[in-house]
């Protein structure tokens, strides 16, 4: 990520210099930094709500139950995660929340899953294959009803605001399949122990 980050910043400064937008650039940097904090703190409420509910579900055995139910699928995707690991339950709840379009529940469940997967991580600070796959899955959209887009279309006066549903589902399925495939196929390009081998820096 270091290289990507430096590249983004350097390209921005170069472009701003060329187009004379230095003031706007500085303002954007400062304002964005503040927005990062506002955004994170804005999550505290929903995060607490869903993590509280998740703990109840854990103690009632519900999380382990959904984890077991989805084991046939998860065991194939996350081969390095032991069968009884608590990460399974959190992963299922995250995916379910994503599919239902419950974005604000998906994030706390997903972070719970990341924390559970981190227990299996021997190289702190570097993502495991399972974590990379899980993040790739979350950076592809798997929701069934794109509620926000449909609402925007409705307010713009579409004849049938939801007529894009089928097309969106097909496109989402393609994106998700590519995310899973790419995460699996590209892992060899990014060896785990931090080493100066070529091709490792872009991560």
């Amino acid at each position, binding site marked *: 990520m270091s290289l990507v980050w430096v590249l983004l910043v350097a390209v921005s400064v170069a472009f701003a210099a060329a187009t004379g937008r230095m003031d706007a650039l500085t303002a954007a940097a400062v304002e964005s930094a503040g927005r990062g904090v506002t955004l994170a703190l804005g999550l505290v409420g929903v995060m607490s709500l869903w993590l509280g509910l*998740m703990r109840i579900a854990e103690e009632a055995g519900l999380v382990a139950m959904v984890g077991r139910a989805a084991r046939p699928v998860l065991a194939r995707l996350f081969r390095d995660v032991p069968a009884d690991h608590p990460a399974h339950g959190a992963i299922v709840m995250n995916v379910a929340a994503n599919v239902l379009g419950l974005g604000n529940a998906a994030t706390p469940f997903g972070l719970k899953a990341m924390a559970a997967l981190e227990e299996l991580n021997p190289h702190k600070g570097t993502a495991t294959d399972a974590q990379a796959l899980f993040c790739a899955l979350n950076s592809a959209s798997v929701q069934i009803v794109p509620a926000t887009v449909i609402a925007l279309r409705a307010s713009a006066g579409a004849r049938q605001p939801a007529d894009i549903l089928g097309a969106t589902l097909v496109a989402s399925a393609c994106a998700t399949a590519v995310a899973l495939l790419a995460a699996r196929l590209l892992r060899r390009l990014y060896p785990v122990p931090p080493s100066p081998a070529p091709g490792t820096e872009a991560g």
Partner: protein
Amino acid sequence: MITAALETVSRWAVPLLLAGIPLYAIARGVKVYPAFLEGAKEGFQVAVRIIPALVAVLVALGMLRASGALDGIARLVGPAAEALGIPASALPMVLVRPLSGGAALGVVGDVLRAEGPDSHAGRLVSVMAGSTETTFYVLAVYMGSVGISRYRQALPAGLLADAAGFAASVLVVRALFG
């Protein structure tokens, strides 16, 4: 019909979970309220833990957008994108989607207003927005929450997924709506 059913599921899911999980737990003899407080306590820590990564990524992306680099790139790749079936008005979506969810919805709003929701571009940006995610934000939050700075294959995989979503959107919208 199917849409209405799916929307009902979405609308009922949260209330059902909020009531269902505690009810099931209390029937199983779980001390529900202390358990909730115990879990909720983590909410603040988790949110605070993602701040550094979120600031880093948002600053870089904010600078990128303010620098005008995206406009430059749009001019540069515009003709190629047009040849691939992405109209000029939909191009900002492709550039902005992995960087900012809010900006992507802004593009959807602009195109719907300028060309109408039932236009080709209107449908295309709608499908694009619905089938992809804000990759940089997701990675910053998820990886940042456990202190990971080397994302490895997650970043290329996430960006390739976005690219696949865009390509599929172009093909499917053309096939379904002509």
